[in-house]
């Protein structure tokens, strides 16, 4: 046994048990975090309600069980029969909210995924190649950012016509620059790191340095941003359908449109504004709580 082996043996007592990596450690911290758990519970509730809507909703979204009870001045509020009351057409509000979760989840997830994909492609181009590619890509992104998000979404939704697809695309487009800038910034800082220099000195090819070192180490904030984007996408989707740019079929329940159509009856039936509003808040809150806590769990500076 050589000298340095003896020395190393005395050092090896300091080896920690287990082979967990950073992300697993972050996941462990997250599972012990009460705030994150509340967030997870809200998300789970939202997702389950959306998936199981036909099973748990007491009525169909187009059924009008209370059609005879509606008069121009009275819209019955919550009762034992209809927990969230009836809407202006005598439909069960609870069932409408439950079915509405499907639209929100669909729009949120698809818009987030599209936006993230677009942003990652642009960010990666800029971050991996630098120089003029970086300049060109980032100027495009700057132009996209200079237009207010909702205004841009309204314009896109208006151009593409009234459909759920155009809502998704509109929301995706306004999220592209956010992801692009985030990923580019992360990649630029990783590119300056010692281990990238080490890989370069080993003779690792540029492509594999980017794919196996720079990109994986840049993804944590992107995952956090994706979670937070889900929350804003749900709110933006509601805003677009509130403005009349949602899905083409008005009988499909959407939280934003439900809020919009209730404006006329705000005085006589405030519950019609309350429940869709609450649903939007709860869904967005779940993703926000998890996203914020995830950020802290992944960031060594926040470690408690």
């Amino acid at each position: 046994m050589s000298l340095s082996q003896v020395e190393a043996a005395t050092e090896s007592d300091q080896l920690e048990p287990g082979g967990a990596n950073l992300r697993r450690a972050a996941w462990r911290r997250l599972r012990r975090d009460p705030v994150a758990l509340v967030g997870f519970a809200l998300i789970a509730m939202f997702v389950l309600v959306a998936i199981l809507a036909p099973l748990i909703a007491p009525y169909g979204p187009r059924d009008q069980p209370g059609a005879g009870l509606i008069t121009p001045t009275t819209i019955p509020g919550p009762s034992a029969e209809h927990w969230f009351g009836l809407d202006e057409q005598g439909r069960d509000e609870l069932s409408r909210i439950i079915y509405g979760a499907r639209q929100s989840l669909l729009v949120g997830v698809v818009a987030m995924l599209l936006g993230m994909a677009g942003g990652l492609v642009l960010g990666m181009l800029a971050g991996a190649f630098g120089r003029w590619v970086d300049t060109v890509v980032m100027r495009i992104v700057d132009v996209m950012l200079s237009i207010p998000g909702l205004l841009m979404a309204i314009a896109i939704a208006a151009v593409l016509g009234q459909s759920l697809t155009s809502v998704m695309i509109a929301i995706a487009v306004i999220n592209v620059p956010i992801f692009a800038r985030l990923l580019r910034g992360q990649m630029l800082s990783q590119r300056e790191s010692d281990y990238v220099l080490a890989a370069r000195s080993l003779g690792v090819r540029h492509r594999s340095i980017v794919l196996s070192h720079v990109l994986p180490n840049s993804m944590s904030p992107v995952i956090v941003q994706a979670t937070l984007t889900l929350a804003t996408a749900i709110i933006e989707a509601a805003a677009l359908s509130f403005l009349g740019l949602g899905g083409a079929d008005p009988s499909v329940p959407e939280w934003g449109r439900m809020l919009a159509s209730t404006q006329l009856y705000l005085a006589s039936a405030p519950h019609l504004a309350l429940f869709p509003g609450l649903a939007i808040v709860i869904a967005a809150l779940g993703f926000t709580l998890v996203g914020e806590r995830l950020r802290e769990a992944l960031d060594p500076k926040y470690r408690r």
Partner: protein
Amino acid sequence: MTEAPAEQGRRRRSIDPTDALLTVDDLQVHFPIRRGILVERQVGAVKAVDGVDLTIPRGSTVGLVGESGCGKSTFGRALLRLVEPTGGSVHFDGTDLLALDDEQMRRMRRQMQMVFQDPMASLDPRQDVESVLTEPLRAHRIEGDHRARARELLDLVGLPATALSRYPHEFSGGQRQRIGIARAIALEPQLIVADEPVSALDVSIQAQVVNLLEELQDRLGLTYLVIAHDLAVVRHIADVVAVMYLGGLVEQAASDELYAAPLHPYTRALMSAVPIPDPEVEDTRQRILLAGDLPSPAAPPPGCRFHTRCPFRQETRCDDERPQLRSVATRPPSHRVACHWAEDIDAGRIQPRASAVVEPDAS
């Protein structure tokens, strides 16, 4: 432990000083300083490395010492083209490195590797040790059992094979540096540039890592360029020591010679700052203090770079004539110094200004 660290540096191996593995000629690394938003124009340059000549004989260890910011790390990186040199030439085993295109240079990297100062920062936190050690093999498409090679490398640096599935954060600083060293020798390079290889480690671990580097040199026939600010570490490991100040070499000599009798005023000042482990000598020796900071490499002083802080500065030549590295009649030809007045200072005909000297009885 039988191999107590030798005080006078370790036993010298037989090295042929004319068999150069690496020859650096007038190497320059200037970083442009740019101004302007739309139209950038260059308004100056940070001369991090400004005309350095250095020869590294095969199988030897050359130490490069200097203050922080003197350009020694940039020099080490420029040798490997991790920073592009802006002038001069680097010949490795007869090949002009600066003439190679990217792919040729990438292949050439098999022959020359680097050990970094901070082992935590130089290891990808998401990569387990097996992946760290096999990555260079994959990059150069080397055939064979990579896993077995990784085990062998761990064994060479004195780590257990169970380390393979672990991640960098699970190791201590010394162990991480061993992993960094194992990665550097994975491709069986000829030259290793070690940039402050032990300065981020606990003092108790430093000697172990230095011993490991020496052991590997004997076993694998490596050539080292060790960059450090710690004079004791360099004295222990290096055969030849070069002293760098503000982008240029001021003195170069065999390790024992340089430490026993430094010629350049800057080297003298550095050496006089090293405590001597003998109370009687320590109590009676003279210390030279350097005033002020390192001047900006963006606007280096004219003439001798060191004249602004030199306690031996003379009225003539120092301010306007840049001294070249040259040998001195009274010393072996391998001892070279960049000072106009080296002979007079060595003979005691020029004394340092009193304000820069701390006499032993002053304290």
